[in-house]
């Protein structure tokens, strides 16, 4: 088995997949804790559908680098969703559902009206579930991913204390002079960037799993925010590496294998939390 892994590691595309996989899982888990605690889990889900719609438009326009279109559209949607999302819970819910379902429908419609390849359903499937895109990354995409990941990690570390304060108690933060709105915006934009990145790894339907499972697992076991954040990052990276290796060895789809590993990790953490 080890021979086989060493054999595969000789190929650059496998190395790229591992690098991107580690970075994406690290980034997505960092903000996962905040999103789960702020009851924003579904914003991630909604944004991933928007990213799917944007991807479809980029494909129809035959853009060589679809990130240039997908990233701004997703970021703008994140900002809009957050603006309707604060203080008016129910409206926010409906807005997310509206935007996500709408983007999904239009994306699929556009792909069918202006087919760019003979196999439309194959294209759709790979965008939704990320089947092979992680193994077909170009070196430019890998670099883009590295740069964006570094930015996300730096932003998270620099604003860690503020993000904590705003997550724990938005009203208190605002009342004592922290610009909670600005930090909410920062969180939304960062999560949009992460989602666009993560589409390569697990596809747009499975991104939420990458964001919420490590956070939920860590919350079973740890009592401090720092402990939860660090553990969820470590767990997420390990699960992704494990998932990628399993998928290479067993020939299973990368995205769903990673999510399956994340779920197993959650179950183990849940049981450990009950025992401890």
């Amino acid at each position, binding site marked *: 088995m080890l021979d086989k892994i060493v054999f595969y590691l000789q190929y650059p595309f496998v190395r790229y997949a591992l690098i991107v996989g580690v970075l994406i899982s690290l980034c997505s888990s960092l903000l996962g*804790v905040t999103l789960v*605690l*702020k*009851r924003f889990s579904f914003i991630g889900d909604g944004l991933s559908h928007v990213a799917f719609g944007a991807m479809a438009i980029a494909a129809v326009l035959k853009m060589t680098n679809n990130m240039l279109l997908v990233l701004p559209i997703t970021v703008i949607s994140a900002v809009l969703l957050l603006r309707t999302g604060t203080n008016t819970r129910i409206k926010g819910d409906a807005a997310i559902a509206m935007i996500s379902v709408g983007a999904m429908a239009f994306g699929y419609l556009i792909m069918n009206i202006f087919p760019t390849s003979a196999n439309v359903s194959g294209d759709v499937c790979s965008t939704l579930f990320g089947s092979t895109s992680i193994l077909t990354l170009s070196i430019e995409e890998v670099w883009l991913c590295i740069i964006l990941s570094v930015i996300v990690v730096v932003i998270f*570390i*620099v*604003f*860690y*204390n*503020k993000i*904590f*304060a705003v*997550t*724990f*108690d938005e*009203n*208190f*933060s*605002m*009342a*004592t*002079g*922290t610009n909670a709105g600005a930090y909410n915006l920062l969180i939304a934009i960062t999560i949009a960037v992460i989602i666009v990145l993560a589409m390569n790894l697990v596809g747009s339907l499975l991104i939420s799993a990458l964001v919420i499972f490590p956070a939920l697992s*860590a*919350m079973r076991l*740890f*009592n*401090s*925010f*720092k*402990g*939860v954040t660090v553990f969820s990052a470590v767990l997420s990276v390990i699960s992704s590496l494990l998932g990628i290796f399993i998928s290479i060895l067993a020939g299973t789809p990368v995205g769903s294998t990673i999510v399956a590993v994340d779920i197993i990790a959650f179950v183990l953490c849940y049981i450990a939390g009950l025992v401890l």
Partner: protein
Amino acid sequence: MALLTVKDLTLGYDSHVIVEKLNFSVNAGDYLCIVGENGSGKTTLLRTLLHLINPISGEILMGDDLKKNEIGYLPQQTVIQKDFPASVREIVLSGCTGRMGLRPFYNAKEKQLAAESMERMSITPLANRCYRELSGGQQQRVLLARALCATGKLLILDEPVSGLDPYVTSEMYELIAELNRDGITIIMISHDITAAVKYASHILHIGETVFFGTKDEYLNSDTGKWKDYVR
């Protein structure tokens, strides 16, 4: 000049007016209790004082060099906090974020301040415990310690004893009175008029009739008269 002066303040959401033409002032060292029936606009007034919502008209003047980020606030607990994984120390420290500006990390002075606040609330032994595992009274002490990190001047409290048992409630009131004796100005919303007249120096009653004055004036007024049984 007074710490806080409220002039002709009209409160409400959108164009729906809840309280009209409110006038009162709070001096350094005062203990003001805001009482009134449910829906009379107590919480709206509090949120306006904290600049969380804008008043429909009128103004709130802050004197004695009181800055916006020098107000300590004890909010009611939210659903999110009930299962929030955070240690007591992390939460108390987060009271310092308002004074940090754009500086990313806490400095030694802020850590010292957090330690002192925890000591003052006698929760130092709980520093590494998880917030969600504490009792209601302990949680309130944690949030009060956090508020003390944000201010040394003015504390605004939103029903600090709701959901606490009678013993812990009186403990909480004593704690707040002690902070007031140490020179911190208190503005508190309360349902509990008995406690309000026991501890407060001034009373603001809002509702169908509006009254503002000292505790003694309140007990002799028409608004406060029926509470005579309290004495």
